[in-house]
Every structure is written in C-alpha cells, then in structure tokens.
C-alpha cells in the first residue's frame, strides 16, 4: 500500500491540534460562564440571568469570545442543515439517473465487485465519489462512451482511492471544522492543502496499479484540453489548485511535489487571533 507522505499528515496533524484546542477552550469558556447562572423557572428569566451575569461578573472581552462561540455554533448548524438538504437533492438526482443494468454490466466487465459503483444515464462526463458512510463511485454513460477500457481502469483506481479512505466523510468533517473556525483562516488553508493531496494520492494509486501514468494523463488531457482552448486565450500564472499539481505529477511522477501550506498573511492573521483569544482566556476571567 502506498505510504502517506509527510505533508498531508502534517496538515491533518495541525488541523486536529489547532481545531481541538480552540474548540475545547471555547467549549470550556461556555461552561465556565453558564455554571454560575441560576436555574430559573422559564426561558426569559434564564436569558435575563445570562445577560446580567455577562455584564456584571465577566470582563468586557468575554462577550467577544461569546460572539466567536456563537459564530462557530451558527456556522456548524448551517453546514449540517445544508448538507442534509443537499444530500436529499443529490440522492433524488442520482436515483433518477441510475441504470442498474449498465451498472451490472460495467462491474462485471471491469471485475470490481468489491467497489460500490453506480452508472448513471448522463451524456456529460462524470466520475465522482460520493456518500459519507458507504461511499460509491458515480460514473456517467457519457464517460464510459468517451474513454477506452484502460483509461476507464485508471479512472476507477483514482475513484477507488477516494472510496477506500472515505474521503467524502473526511472532507465533510474537515470542512465543518474550517467553516466553524473561519476566524482562523489558517484552518481553511490547511484543509485546502489536504484536499490537494487527496487528489495527488488518488492519482498515485492509479499510476501504481496501472503501472504507468499514461492512461490517467490521457484522460486528464482529454478533459482539460477542450476546456482550456475555450476559456484561456492568454498566459495564466500557476494557480494553487489540485489540477495543476496533478498535471505536474503526471509530467514527472518521480519529482517530489511541494505544496505551500498557507500564505504568510494567513498565518499572521491566525496568530494574531489566537494570541488575542489566549490573552482573553488568561486575563479575561474574574
């Protein structure tokens, strides 16, 4: 099995450390603030007691922290509701397009009985891995018509990697952490970094199993070339997106890929926020 390189492991490590520290500290802060609020007979009195407690028993800076906590909770709830709604929409779309006959034939042809695959009737070129608990690879009939058997194998290995490591679920959790801690821009940068590596590693998995990068390269080139001619008539500088790192890797699979974790401005801003929060935690309580 291919070993996870150092960079994405580091990104995950820092997301876990910073995310957990901040969330636990914010959570503890909430606990600290509400523990001295008396239980009242109705909600209005509870809220009144909370306001009175904030104004009289805690320094001015603590409401700022409460603002951040509230922001995080709202963002988390928003993400959850959005994901549930989108899941329903997605399921309706896929179920309406699903073709069990084509799916059966495809699985048999490519001998991928262990992989959850679904072929949908769609002339667009679609290959994606979706689903949180039991991820499945969604392929369109347009894709199957467009590419030959070897190229399809390469595509399947790429998507298999995403499915095997439950990347949809990983990405959901990481995105929710990054969104709820949006006041720490470094979190979004680290998640973006990890997401790029997800694609690179999926490509490496495909290259390893195909024994060559040619098939995957042909697929990417076919999909990108047409889009490129249409959308860009002038030189474009290198954009920090997965597509460009994947191209680099396919051009020279032996050269190590270096992806920046974050910009200096992002790091500086996040450090400032973290320092301010820490000072409030240390000096802010009575």
């Amino acid at each position, binding site marked *: 099995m291919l070993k996870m390189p150092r960079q994405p492991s580091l990104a995950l490590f820092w997301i876990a450390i910073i995310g957990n520290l901040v969330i636990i500290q914010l959570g503890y802060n909430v606990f600290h603030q509400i523990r001295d609020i008396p239980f009242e007979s109705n909600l209005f009195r509870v809220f009144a007691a909370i306001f009175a407690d904030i104004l009289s028993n805690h320094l001015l800076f603590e409401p700022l922290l409460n603002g951040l906590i509230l922001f995080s909770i709202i963002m988390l709830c928003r993400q959850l509701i959005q994901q549930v709604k989108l899941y329903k929409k997605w399921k309706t779309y896929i179920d309406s397009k699903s073709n069990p006959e084509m799916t059966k034939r495809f699985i048999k042809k490519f001998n991928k009985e262990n992989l959850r695959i679904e072929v949908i009737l769609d002339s667009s070129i679609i290959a994606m*891995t979706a689903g949180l608990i039991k991820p499945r690879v969604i392929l369109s009939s347009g894709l199957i018509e467009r590419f030959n058997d070897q190229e399809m194998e390469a595509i399947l290995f790429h998507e298999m990697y995403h499915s095997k490591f439950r990347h949809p679920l990983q990405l959901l959790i990481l995105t929710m952490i990054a969104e709820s801690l949006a006041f720490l821009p470094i979190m979004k940068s680290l998640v973006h970094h990890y997401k790029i590596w997800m694609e690179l590693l999926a490509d490496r998995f495909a290259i390893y199993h195909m024994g060559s990068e040619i098939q995957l390269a042909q697929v990417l080139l076919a999909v990108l070339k047409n889009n490129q001619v249409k959308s860009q008539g002038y030189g474009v500088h290198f954009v920090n997106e997965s597509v460009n790192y994947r191209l680099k890797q396919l051009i020279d699979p032996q050269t190590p890929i270096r992806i920046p974790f974050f910009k200096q401005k992002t790091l500086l801003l996040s450090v400032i926020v973290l320092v301010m929060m820490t000072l409030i935690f240390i000096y802010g309580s009575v």
Partner: protein
Amino acid sequence: MKVKSIHLNEEGLNRFFGSLEAKIMKVLWEKEKLTIKQVHESLKKEDGISLNAVMTVMGRLTDKGHLIKDSSGKGRTRLTFFSPVQNKEQFILEQTKVVTDGLVEDFGSLMVSHLVDNMDKADPDLLLRLEQKLNELKKKS
C-alpha cells in the same frame, strides 16, 4: 459556448436544449453544414415539423452562439449554410464542467471531486508539457 439554463433532471441533450433545438443540433453535428431547408427535410420525415419552426429555432441557436451562418452566392442563388460552432464532443466536454460544477456546488462536500476539479484553472504550460510528453511516449512505442 456555455448554455445559460440547464435542466439537470432532463436526459441527454434535452438538458441543454429545448426539444427541437436538440434535434436540429443532432442533425447538424452529423452533417456539419446545412441550409435551413436541408435541416427541415431531415426532420420532417420523423416529426412533421414546419419550415418556419425550424427557421425560428435555427435563428435562435445562432443568436445563442451554437451555430454560425455562412452565406454564399447572390440574389436568387444566395444560400445560407449553418454549422455548429463546436462539435458534439467539444460541446459535451464544455457543458460537463458546467453540470458538474453545478453538481459539486449543489452537493457540496458529499462529492469529493469530479474527475477534474477547477478545469478553468489548469495552467496551459503544464497542459502543453503533458501533451508533449504523451506524444513522445507514443512515438517511442
């Protein structure tokens, strides 16, 4: 040319075009260059569509940028040919990005990635280098 409205739950070309638009595009993708009358001849066998309807829809497709007009001859011998701006494969590939960007945007992190994310951000130099590499490998084999 990007289609402005996409009907995600429709099948095939009907996702991007109205019913008659899709039929006309199919004919033109097959034959490449035809006059309105020739397109009408192809379609009326199956569906009994009027020449006026075909003319109107082909005009609309031209306005939307899917067809180009090419007139030749003068006076009574003047002929106007219509041909698709993109071939079918190019059209499907381009619309793929719109559909799947829409899907990914709609379905968020439930989807990890389409086969290729952020197609419009691909570096043209890298594409060229990859193409050159593949050509060299093909020559060697």
